[in-house]
């Protein structure tokens, strides 16, 4: 297996360099704070702050979700490594406007430990912190053990909606309530066709036979429900959505959803659209109404080939927040339901 050809300078400095590049891509809307945090420049006093974050190497998330009606800041770790507690603390202090900070991030041991330590440090400085963990991956644990599930691409609609809510709500309690609601209304499942690699070593993050697909894989290549023989786009789409529909959250006829078809990296936009075609057929059969579709490579694992599907069930409140416009380096939309 040859090492993938990448445009890098120092392979050990990727996380720092990409963060610099990201801040510049924000064209003055965001700034770097401390060692590795990115924070919006204009956060109104008294605003309930929303902080996201996690390891780097999954670009454009999480750090690309800081922006207008999205997150106020992100704490950024090294490649595939949770941010350290001091990075979390720096980010927390920088976004805090006197009304508390909600931490919203993926449920990984490393992230939980580091963000928790960051929260403890922040509380020492009299900043109120609340945490909502994202655990949308249905393949990673049974529905009875949600706290064991990891967070994958569902973070995009979750952060989008929580970010809009954070502009409107008046208390940390309220924001926490909305974030929990949209988290609990979101389910995802992913698959892998080929591994990504670690920039510093060029080594693939896992091995997978040429004729197999990893079903239910995490965004680092963590295994899920197992490997199945390589199959057609339609077949795989069917199998993946079945995993979501077999879960505890009911998607009934007439329900409105956000559908997110994500590429993990090397899977082309063409393939996402081919899978979307089948996904929509399946959703239509069930009478599920897609309020808006997101298609694109937003939650990645380097050049890993694979896709994920995420469904977020909307109610009137969540739809109102969805329909607000937003703008970031990662996901932008105009007012309303346009696409």
């Amino acid at each position: 297996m040859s090492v993938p050809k990448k445009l890098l300078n120092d392979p050990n400095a990727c996380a720092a360099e990409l963060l610099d590049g990201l801040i510049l891509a924000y064209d003055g809307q965001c700034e770097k704070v401390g060692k590795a945090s990115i924070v919006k420049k204009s956060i109104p006093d008294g605003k309930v702050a929303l902080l996201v974050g996690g390891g780097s190497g999954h670009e454009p998330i999480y750090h690309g979700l800081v922006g207008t009606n999205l997150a106020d800041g992100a704490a950024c770790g090294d490649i595939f490594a949770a941010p350290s507690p001091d990075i979390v603390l720096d980010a927390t202090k920088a976004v805090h406007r006197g009304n508390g900070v909600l931490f919203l991030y993926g449920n990984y041991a490393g992230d939980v430990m580091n963000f928790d330590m960051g929260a403890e440090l922040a509380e020492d400085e009299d900043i109120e912190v609340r945490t909502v963990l994202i655990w949308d991956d249905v393949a990673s644990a049974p529905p009875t053990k949600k706290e064991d599930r990891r967070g994958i691409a569902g973070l995009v609609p979750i952060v989008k909606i929580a970010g809009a809510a954070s502009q409107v709500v008046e208390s940390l309690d309220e924001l926490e309530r909305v974030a929990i609601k949209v988290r609990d209304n979101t389910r995802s499942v992913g698959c892998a066709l080929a591994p990504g690699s670690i920039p510093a070593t060029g080594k693939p993050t896992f091995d997978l036979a040429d004729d197999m697909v990893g079903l239910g894989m995490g965004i680092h290549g963590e295994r899920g429900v197992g490997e199945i023989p390589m199959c057609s786009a339609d077949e795989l789409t069917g199998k993946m959505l079945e995993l979501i529909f077999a879960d505890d959250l009911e998607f009934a006829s007439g329900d409105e959803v956000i559908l997110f078809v994500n590429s993990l990296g090397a899977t082309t936009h063409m393939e996402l659209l081919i899978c979307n075609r089948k996904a929509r057929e399946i959703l239509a059969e069930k009478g599920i109404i897609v309020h808006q579709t997101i298609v694109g490579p937003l939650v990645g694992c380097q050049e890993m080939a694979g896709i994920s599907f995420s469904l977020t069930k909307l109610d009137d409140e969540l739809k109102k927040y969805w329909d607000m416009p937003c703008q970031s380096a990662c996901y932008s939309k105009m007012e309303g339901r346009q696409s």
Partner: protein
Amino acid sequence: MAKQQLSVDETVAMLDAVADAIIAAEPELSEADRNLGDGDHGLGMKRGMEAVKAKLSEGGFESVDKVFMAMGMAMMSSMGGASGAVFGTLFRNGGKALKGSETFDAAGLAEFLKGGTEGVMTRGGAKPGDKTMVDALEPAQKAAELAVSLPLSEALDTTAQAAEAGRDASKDLIATMGRAKTLGEASIGHPDAGACSVAIIFRTMATFAAGN
């Protein structure tokens, strides 16, 4: 010459040797993590140990607890990830337990491991058997507790042996913590990456104290 106890400077030298050993083991530690996790454990530990070496070289440590705590802080803030949190906590909380000690001996080792192991288990919630570094750490802690009256070099040797045995035994466990937990039965057959680091840490300490 085998050591009964270490001065502050010797403790610094021992931990510097630990850092070198972990840095040298980067490829095997990353490979261990590739089997069960995301393949970066060696890289994270190496990043941490380079920060540790820089911190240790600054010198000016008044007591051994400060050395261990500085090491823990350096790891925690440079590494991130699960291992930054757990190994940072191991050295920070372990160091705290040695408050004011001017030497590091077998009793200190036991205190260090007691404080450190407790800290790690509280922080991460992992118990023995979950297939994490705790499966090397907890046997090491038990061994050190029984070795309080031995010379440091011998206490470290039995501690390292226990850590190594724990690492080896972790092969047969089903992961229930960390990234590997979603693997279920498929996690059997590989040792935990963090447990490999624990074994290297205590083996290097033992070798140092043995004067070899």
